[in-house]
């Protein structure tokens, strides 16, 4: 069972073959056994997990099961939860316990999910390798010398090693899709405004979006269907967003008539040649399934990383101002005065990457530099959106590699932030344009998973789900499991 999908577990629960408590216990056992190897979870409360599972079994005994009845879901440490600490994997949130659940958490609970625990992440979601976490790095289950990607690296590793059948992440510049790609999972970043951001600790407000990390496209659709929907408590959550039947969108078995755009800017010199070959092969498979591959251009792609690393740090620099040691979180010992309290608390509380981005953002917004940086970056953002708009007049969806390289070795890029920033080169534009994007496994390079990224126009996740489901039904990449964590323990 450990490597089961949500839909498999759901079927067994519905058939009465297993109970939610048994399911929860299976994964708790695996976490106990493997988490030390992976450092995927930073907070687990087994008693609470079992209590939720018992409550779910009791509910099922009396009622029709809810959409996620008894299904274990892990969540990134960026989601505020009433139970236990919420740290965003930062020392600045030392001792912080949120007195509220994120809106998404409420929705999962109302749908009957069993929340497994908090997963590791880059501090404040700033990173592409999960190495900036205050709780230490995460190992990639496919090769524990490698990083799992980031920032939702803990969620990725947890699902890839079957410590949970599914997890939630957040994606500001690729933080769901890139780790999903590097760990052989499906990761979906919904359209900006589809999922409420309330109660999710902000990194860059205009880019952040929560989404699922799962083994299959259908599981991703199932979770997104529960997570999404208007929240009056988030002014950027869109009311009356176009919707559709999420699960039905996953029934697609072929790609007849589908026009897939292949942007030349996403197949570039310097990318890993095996990754390129795997994605080319995937596109050839799509053609066999009936799709038409159309060469397109998204000409402003090369400016996306630069624009992102102005906009995201700018927003972050002010989003993180609230961590001032006044009301909660870390406060330095014996501050001399107010300035000292601010400076030392923040110096001690934030890690190097977070400080780098706060400084970058503060600089970019400073008077005299605003026009040259922030304003220019916003103009680039508009051009990138227009690129996609123009492209979607020719094609239905766009397919690209998710990451230019497979998972790299831990420590390999930590001293070189600029190279690290290029890990997100293929995912960032999607956030800047607010579009939905999904990564799914499409092969291996150097025995490490490779991801295929699908991009659709805003609110048309159904197109992505249909294409990805058709590809999934014709291939078996999604069934591959990290052998070091397979078949050992947790069988029930």
């Amino acid at each position, binding site marked *: 069972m450990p490597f089961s999908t949500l839909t498999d577990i759901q079927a067994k629960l519905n058939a009465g073959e297993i109970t939610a408590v048994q399911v929860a216990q299976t994964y708790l056992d695996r976490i106990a056994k493997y988490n030390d190897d992976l450092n995927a979870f930073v907070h687990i409360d087994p008693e609470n997990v079992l209590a939720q599972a018992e409550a779910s079994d009791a509910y099922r005994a009396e009622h029709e099961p809810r959409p996620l009845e008894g299904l274990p879901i892990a969540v990134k440490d960026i989601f505020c939860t009433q139970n236990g600490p919420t740290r965003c994997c930062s020392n600045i949130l030392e001792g912080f316990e949120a007195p509220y659940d994120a809106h998404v958490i409420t929705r999962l609970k109302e749908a009957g999910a069993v929340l497994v625990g908090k997963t590791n992440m880059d501090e404040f979601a700033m990173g592409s390798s999960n190495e900036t976490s205050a709780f230490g790095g995460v190992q990639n289950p496919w090769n524990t010398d490698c990083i799992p990607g980031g920032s939702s690296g803990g969620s990725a590793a947890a699902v890839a090693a079957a410590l949970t059948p599914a997890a939630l992440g957040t994606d500001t510049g690729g933080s769901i899709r890139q780790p999903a790609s590097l760990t052989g999972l499906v990761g979906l970043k919904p359209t900006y405004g589809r999922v409420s951001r309330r109660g999710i600790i902000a990194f860059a407000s205009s880019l952040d979006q929560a989404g699922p990390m799962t083994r299959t496209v259908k599981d991703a659709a199932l979770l997104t269907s529960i997570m999404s929907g208007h929240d009056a408590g988030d002014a950027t959550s869109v009311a009356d967003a176009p919707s559709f039947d999420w699960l039905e969108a996953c029934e697609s078995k072929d790609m007849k008539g589908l026009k897939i755009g292949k942007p030349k800017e996403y197949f570039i010199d310097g990318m890993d040649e095996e990754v390129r070959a795997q994605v080319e092969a995937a596109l050839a498979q799509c053609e066999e399934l009936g799709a038409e591959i159309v060469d397109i251009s998204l000409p402003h792609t090369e400016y996306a990383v630069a624009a992102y690393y102005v906009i995201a740090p700018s927003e972050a620099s002010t989003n993180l101002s609230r961590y001032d040691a*006044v009301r909660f979180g870390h406060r330095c010992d014996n501050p001399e005065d107010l300035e000292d309290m601010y400076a030392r608390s923040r110096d001690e509380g934030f890690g190097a990457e977070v400080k780098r981005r706060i400084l970058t953002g503060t600089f970019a917004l400073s008077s005299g530099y605003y026009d040259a940086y922030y304003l220019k970056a916003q103009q680039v953002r508009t051009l990138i959106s227009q690129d996609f708009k123009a492209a979607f007049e020719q094609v239905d969806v766009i397919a690209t590699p998710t990451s230019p390289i497979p998972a790299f070795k831990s420590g390999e890029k930590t001293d070189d932030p600029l190279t690290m920033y290029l890990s997100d080169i293929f995912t960032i534009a999607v956030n800047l344009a607010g579009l939905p994007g999904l990564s799914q496994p499409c092969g291996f390079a150097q025995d490490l998973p490779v991801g295929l990224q699908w991009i659709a126009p805003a609110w048309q996740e159904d197109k992505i789900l249909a294409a990805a489901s058709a590809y999934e039904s014709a291939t078996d990449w999604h069934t591959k499991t990290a052998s070091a964590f397979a078949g050992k323990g947790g069988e029930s």
Partner: protein
Amino acid sequence: MSWEMVIGLEVHCQINTKTKAFCGCSTEFGAEPNSQTCPVCLGMPGQLPVLNDVAAKKTILTGLAINADINLESKFDRKNYFYPDLPKGYQISQFAVPIVEGGYIDIPTPNGEKRLGVTRIHMEEDAGKSMHEGLDAVSHIDLNRSGIPLMEIVSEPDMRSADEAIAYLKQLHQIIKFLGVSGADMEKGQFRCDANVSVRRKGEPFGTRTEMKNMNSFRFIKQAIEFEALRQIEILEDGGEVKQESRLWDSVKNESRSMRSKEEAHDYRYFPEPDLPPLRVTQEEVDAIQAGMPELPNQLRKRFETEFGLSAYDADVLTQTQSLAQWYEALVAAHPANPKQCANWLANELLGRLKELNKDITESPISAKGLASLLDRIADNTISGKIAKDVLDAMMESGKDVDVIIEEKGLKQVSDTGAIDAMIQEVLDANPGQVEAYKGGQDRLFGFFVGQVMKASKGKANPAMVNQRLKELLG
């Protein structure tokens, strides 16, 4: 050449909503510290603002009342600075595109009406309150005020004297009260003012300005502006230069002192608030707000002058507050014969008495109808104007009906010729010397006889009849 002041004003006015600008917390004044807070206004992680649209509507109403343009799409920005009572480390404000732009206010001046430009009105949220007094080595923070909606009303630098500045502020204050968009209670800090002051020789370009921060009394503002202008003139006349800076007015020492210089000024790093989409309103919504516009002080003053024939002074007095104007209109409705007399009795007699009791018109023990029936009794000669004042005192004290008081106290006016003649005769008999003198040509003594007769009648004699009969009887 003489010096001229140039003054521009920024008014921070609390919008009187039930709940805060971006969360559901109460805005009630004076509650237990931090009892009116929630994760949003405490700036807790992951919390998001949602605009209270009542605040937007009231700001639009204010904009319309000062003849301004309403931006159908306005934007929110973050104003960044660290302060312990600013939970998020930024204040949500409107910087690039405010909701209201380009209005004006007309003020009376000795040279006639003057039009003063209003640059903009934008919405923002208030910060909390830091408390240091009586605490040792710590400060306390009350965040009840954090997130309370404000509108900042920014004038053009159009004022040329402290009096013009005060006239502008009073006019604005009155408009805001009439609109019901703010309690505008200055003591509670609901209407606070920053004054930008510079001086120049007439006809020359603007001088360097200083900003006097956070004043909440008309008197202090006037003193501060005058002090600051003189300070600047002295510097310039000594050949010095005025430094651009923020200054604080010390109302105890009656002086201003430097708070921070231009170099020390915050870089607020304004940028668009990504948590709030642009605020969009339709022309239809603006029109609906316009349709609900109450009559404004200036309109009311003009109507009182033309419709009721009041002097500019009386019209001004009676339009100080909406409730007073309404009270006056109710009084005229109940006693339509003489609106000017109504104005006199309300403005001079009733308001005077209320002031002694430290009450305003809404707390008057006498209704408009009650005062009207008193005026009716004067008009029908039941009592004299002089007696009426005593009756008014009695009415205020007892709350009794005017006729009851007249009856009980036997104050009914004497208009019977026989009775009046008898009283006159008594007075003449008692004062033979004065009668002699009067007849000898001392006409001024006529007033003396009237007074004596009125006194003998305890004020009840009909004064017109006393006059007439005295003339006849004195021959």
